[in-house]
């Protein structure tokens, strides 16, 4: 029975809490996020599969591990921590995380990319989906907005709010990303955590073939970030990364944190795994059924 629910194309109503948990506790959440991504995309008939699936484990830890403090019932609350999705095309994973956190009804995920939806193809702040802090989609801007938010908290309001931002690795080709990185360390923003989804894929192919961005860790280090490379599919390792950020903030190191999460595009669905061709397309109905079958085997 449980397996059928998991393999179903329909959305369910189960939500998860945001709290400190054991590494294995994230697996069911990450897989529900993945299943919702598949359900959303097959209905939408367009959108990005690879990045959202590949970063589902990162989002599970970020939204459900107690690292980002927020109130699902009131995402407008101005004391909560904030997340800015700089890689706007990865919207489905953020939408799924917010739905599974109870920020809005899970059923609404079926409206992805539809007329008048709050779940725009790329996040649109004007549609007021709870938890969408900014519009994004033009790469390289979200991280810079996040730096501005972190400056407001750290330098002006002097509170302990945290700001997280996730960029892709292809996105690092946008020069303005590095302007933002420079500013984050210049202003000593130890309340700022930059997550890089390093799946090595972008639309045209492998990242180093399109335009090399490596070494990413050395770049982040030299830009003044406390940099940690983690296995983006190992919950314990991801927790190590976020714990390090919390420690940096607690110890007032004056350094922003960069977590480089090594992931595989499309992870969790075998026929998509590590294939850049899945960057920007949705599964067909048959592929979606196969993906959900496979994901139903997982917790």
């Amino acid at each position, binding site marked *: 029975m449980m397996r059928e629910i998991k393999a179903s194309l329909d959305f369910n109503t189960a939500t998860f809490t945001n709290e400190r948990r054991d590494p294995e506790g994230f697996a069911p959440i990450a897989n529900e996020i993945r299943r919702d991504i598949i359900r959303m995309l097959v209905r939408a008939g367009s959108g990005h599969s690879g990045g959202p699936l590949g970063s589902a484990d990162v989002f599970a830890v970020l939204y459900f591990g107690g690292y980002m403090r927020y109130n699902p019932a009131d995402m407008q609350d101005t004391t909560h921590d904030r997340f800015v999705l700089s890689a706007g095309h990865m919207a489905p994973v953020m939408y799924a995380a917010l739905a599974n956190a109870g920020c809005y009804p899970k059923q609404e995920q079926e409206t992805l990319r539809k007329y008048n939806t709050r779940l725009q193809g790329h996040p649109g702040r*004007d549609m007021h989906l709870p938890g969408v802090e900014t519009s994004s989609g033009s790469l390289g*801007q979200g991280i*810079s907005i996040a730096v501005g938010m972190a400056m407001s908290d750290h330098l002006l309001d002097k509170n302990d709010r945290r700001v997280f931002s996730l960029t892709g690795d292809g996105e690092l080709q946008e020069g303005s990303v590095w302007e933002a990185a420079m500013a984050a360390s210049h202003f000593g923003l130890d309340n700022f955590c930059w997550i890089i989804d390093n799946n090595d894929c972008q639309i045209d192919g492998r990242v180093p073939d399109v335009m090399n961005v490596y070494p990413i860790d050395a770049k982040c280090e030299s830009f003044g970030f406390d940099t940690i490379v983690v296995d983006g599919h190992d919950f314990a390792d991801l927790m190590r990364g976020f714990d390090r950020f919390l420690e940096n903030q607690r110890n007032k190191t004056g350094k922003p944190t960069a977590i480089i999460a090594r992931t595989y595009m499309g992870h969790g669905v075998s026929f998509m795994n590590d294939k850049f061709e899945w960057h920007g397309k949705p599964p067909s109905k048959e592929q979606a059924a196969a993906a959900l079958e496979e994901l139903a085997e997982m917790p």
Partner: protein
Amino acid sequence: MDLLGSKPTRFGFGDGLVDLGERHSNVVVLGGDITGSVMTSLFKEKFPDRFFSIGIAEQNATTIATGLALSGKIPFFASYGAFCALRNADQLRISVCYNEANVKIGGGHAGISVGPDGATHQVLEEVAFLRTLPHMTMIVPADYHEARKATVAMGEMVGPAYIRFGRSPVPMFTTESTPFELGKANVLMDGTDVAIIANGALVWESILAAKELAKKGISARVVNVHTVKPFDFTTVTQAARECGCIVTAEEHQVHAGLGGAVAECTAKNAPVPIEFVGVKDSFGGSGDPEELMVKFGLTWREVYASALIAMERRDKGSSGVRAIREVATYQG
């Protein structure tokens, strides 16, 4: 309308920022390395805790401003218009306007009156771009006092706004008590024969042209459209209906700026002949501001000649225009 001295509009921006800083503790300013030139240095000296230097990184400054605005601050970022309206165009479009972020941009060195710096630093295209952005407010003040009032007004309204100002001193003809309301054009001189619709440095030139036309018995209405967006359709439509022909004048490309806005408005509401005074599809260059204004045809003489042509077109149709073209070289 009399001359009351001269002062750069950028001084008005700098003083207006200090006025705002005194009134609102959440006004913050971002610097782009040229703070002395765009006068944000005044704010920096007075409120050092609310000033942040971002360096030569206009894209980043614009998006950082967005983050500050989304955190309840009122951020101003100022640089040269070439860099803070066009270099960062996508950031203005997506991060600022699509987010409806309460970001304020001050664009200096506008027009060719920058002088010796040359074409790279003389922005002549940004009005066209900015007035197409949803949610954007776009202001082109004509003198020091207007710039100061506009700066305060844009800080106290909610939403993205841009103010365009120049480097060189320009005539002052408004006072502290001259009314200023965002989105409301000022009729500076009343008239019924021709309407001269201008903003920025060309407002004073338009007043001079109107005075010259008066000597010939022509009554010219001078309208200062300091806010290009939102546009004052009412005042401009009324001017078109009552005068029957229009001259637009601006220190900007003739395409898609104030002239374009007037043409859009009148084509819909009250079609009348329009003559456009502005830079005619070319880049600027080095020189003294005064000689450049003459070279690029941005003086009262062009406004004057254009008024005669506009009236001729209204009265005789295009057939009368060929003869009157000679007037375009009128030297006063």
